[in-house]
């Protein structure tokens, strides 16, 4: 059995398919003569262009950015590059060698540039080189778009572009070598509802292609060489999951209410306007976190007001009056956007990020706030400010929005007059001054992912200290309780948009603390509604009282797990 991180619940039973990018080897000496090599090269270019044009088309259709692939076609059409390749072939080189040499030259020139954007282009040339070599050598790329039934995909890391191509119907499990519960791989597998185990060391080498596997995405375990009794056991569990899913399905279209009648708001988190459909399909009652970084990433320059407005408007209008909380740019920390030219920092998580960056770059911030304000005319939009640590910050953001409103009034631009402005509670400072912030915020939303890291002073990506990173640690629980209570005292609603809001172990505590809004991954909406319906306020209070009196994370977890087994 191989151990990893369980990142997407469920059991997958199927055959391993290894998706590996091994270095490509060939015999450098063997040229078939310049004429034959040139025609092989031209045929490969032709296939390259056709393939990439088709992929670009498909990517654009499903909401990706196909222009990167069109850029690859343009690069390979470069007259200078072509003449260099032809010159080498004339000199007796094999087409593969000529492509590798000329691409290699550009890779080293681009990599050595003193300019980040140029350095990034080296990766594009690397892609072109590898793809051309595969075409010339007749190496079949595994076509993720058409896979055999019951495939378990073994991959280094799941990238968004792989997800786009992946044949979702036939993938029953995912195993990766890298990534934690909040990585791209995890988020993607959960939204596709495919069981996934991440961070399995050396999975690509340890798992033989075509071997039978069982992926337990809840426990984070991958089984090889199992006997029939193991298979029967997991088939049973699989049935239970299917039953659970069927049960959850009964909550579609219903309000979110606890057993004793407390009505909650159940929202979804999204990272792009392209996930609108997933939110509607998931039956979420609103959007509790619309991350806007993705509009700014994977490009060469800042998106303009129009482009941002269109994205925000699509979501605002598409949600038809249901609330849409847009978080303003959360750059910095682990999210680098090269063209913003942020300095390399010793300590990025304590550095120049989120609202700190935005208030220091007001021109760009105003563009985003203008776009949000304009979009607010089309739906129930609210603004959320990330990484707040001081009262001044929320006051300054409010002042900017106030000025924009005056401008809009003068120019007769429509907007939601009573647009709400809230604080994302994710720093110890914000927690300690929650009462002061509540005076100036229309709502709170607790970002448990960063809050846990900052409170415990532990990086979950660092294996030596990640044991400290737990939302169930008494310190974090107290912070969460305090924030919710401070909001209630001031009479403003409090939500939670971190992972914890969907964690069934955490829900009784959140109900007891009085959380108003749960914002979760679209794929978790129905399961959270189902879980909340089973919870009784009084019983939750009793469990919370015990959990808060516990001295260690382990005691808290024990209390919560015995509560669950009693209640369910």
């Amino acid at each position, binding site marked *: 059995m191989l151990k990893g991180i369980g990142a997407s619940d469920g059991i997958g039973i199927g055959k391993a398919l290894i998706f590996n990018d091994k270095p490509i080897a060939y015999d450098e000496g063997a040229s078939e003569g310049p004429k034959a090599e040139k025609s092989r090269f031209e045929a490969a270019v032709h296939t390259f262009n056709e393939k990439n044009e088709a992929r670009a088309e498909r990517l654009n259709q499903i909401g990706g950015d196909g*222009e990167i692939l069109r*850029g690859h076609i*343009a*690069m390979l*059409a*470069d*007259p*200078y*590059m072509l003449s260099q390749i032809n010159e080498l072939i004339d000199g007796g080189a094999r087409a593969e060698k000529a492509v590798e040499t000329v691409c290699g030259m*550009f890779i080293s*020139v*681009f990599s050595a*540039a*003193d*300019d980040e*954007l*140029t350095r990034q*282009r080296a990766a*594009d*040339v690397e892609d072109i080189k590898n793809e051309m070599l595969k075409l010339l050598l007749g190496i079949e790329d595994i076509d993720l778009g058409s896979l055999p039934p019951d495939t378990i995909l073994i991959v280094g890391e799941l990238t968004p572009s792989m997800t786009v191509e992946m044949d979702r119907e036939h993938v029953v499990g995912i195993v990766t070598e890298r990534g934690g519960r909040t990585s791209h791989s995890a988020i993607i597998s959960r939204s596709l509802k495919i069981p996934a185990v991440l961070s399995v060391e050396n999975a690509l080498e340890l798992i033989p292609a075509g071997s039978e596997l069982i992926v337990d995405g809840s426990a984070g375990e991958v089984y090889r060489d199992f006997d029939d009794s193991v298979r029967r056991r997991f088939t049973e569990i699989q049935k239970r999951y299917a039953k659970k899913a069927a049960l959850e399905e009964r909550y579609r279209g219903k309000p979110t209410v606890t057993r004793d009648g407390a009505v909650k708001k159940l929202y979804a988190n999204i990272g792009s306007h392209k996930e609108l459909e997933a939110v509607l399909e998931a039956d979420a009652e609103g959007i509790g976190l619309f991350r806007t970084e993705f509009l700014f990433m994977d490009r*060469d*320059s800042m998106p303009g007001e129009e482009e941002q407005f269109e994205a925000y408007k699509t979501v605002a209008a598409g949600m038809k009056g249901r609330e849409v909380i847009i978080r303003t740019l959360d750059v910095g920390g682990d999210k680098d956007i090269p*063209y913003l030219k942020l300095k390399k920092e010793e300590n990025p998580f304590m550095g120049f990020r989120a609202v700190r960056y935005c208030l220091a770059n007001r021109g760009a911030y105003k563009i985003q706030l203008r776009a949000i304000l304009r979009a607010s005319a089309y739906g129930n939009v609210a603004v959320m400010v990330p990484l707040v640590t001081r009262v001044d910050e929320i006051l300054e953001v409010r002042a900017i929005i106030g000025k924009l409103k005056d401008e809009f009034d003068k120019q007769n631009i429509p907007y939601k007059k009573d647009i709400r402005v809230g604080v994302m509670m994710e720093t110890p400072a914000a927690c300690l001054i929650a009462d002061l912030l509540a005076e100036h915020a229309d709502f709170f939303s607790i970002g448990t992912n960063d809050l846990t890291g900052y409170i415990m002073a532990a990086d979950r990506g660092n294996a030596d200290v990640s044991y400290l990173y737990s939302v169930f640690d008494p310190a974090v629980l107290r912070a969460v309780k305090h924030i919710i209570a401070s909001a209630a005292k001031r009479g403003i609603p409090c939500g939670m948009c971190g992972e914890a809001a969907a964690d069934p172990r955490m829900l009784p505590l959140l109900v007891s603390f009085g959380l108003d809004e749960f914002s979760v991954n679209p794929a978790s909406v129905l399961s959270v509604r189902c879980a909340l319906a089973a919870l009784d306020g009084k019983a939750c209070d009793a469990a919370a009282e015990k959990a808060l009196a516990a001295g260690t994370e382990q005691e808290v977890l024990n209390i919560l797990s015995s509560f669950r087994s009693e209640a369910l």
Partner: protein
Amino acid sequence: MVTKTVTVINTQGFHMRPATVFAGEMGKFKSKITLKTDGKTVDGKSLMNIIAACIKCGAEVEVVCEGEDEQAALDKAVSMIESGLGEA
């Protein structure tokens, strides 16, 4: 041979998108087109060489065109750069 010196005004300079459009347009002319900037001499029809030259916002670029349609080529190159390469 005709030449003119212009300043790059779009904030990202000659990057992927603008460079692709520029090299594509220049490729339509028969003349030899050269960009001279910061001591570097670059083939104006080569996207890869333009990217490698890292021509940034504010850079002075001398456009040199030589051939049968040199004036038309120069006019097009100058107007493209002066209008921000389609993204200023």
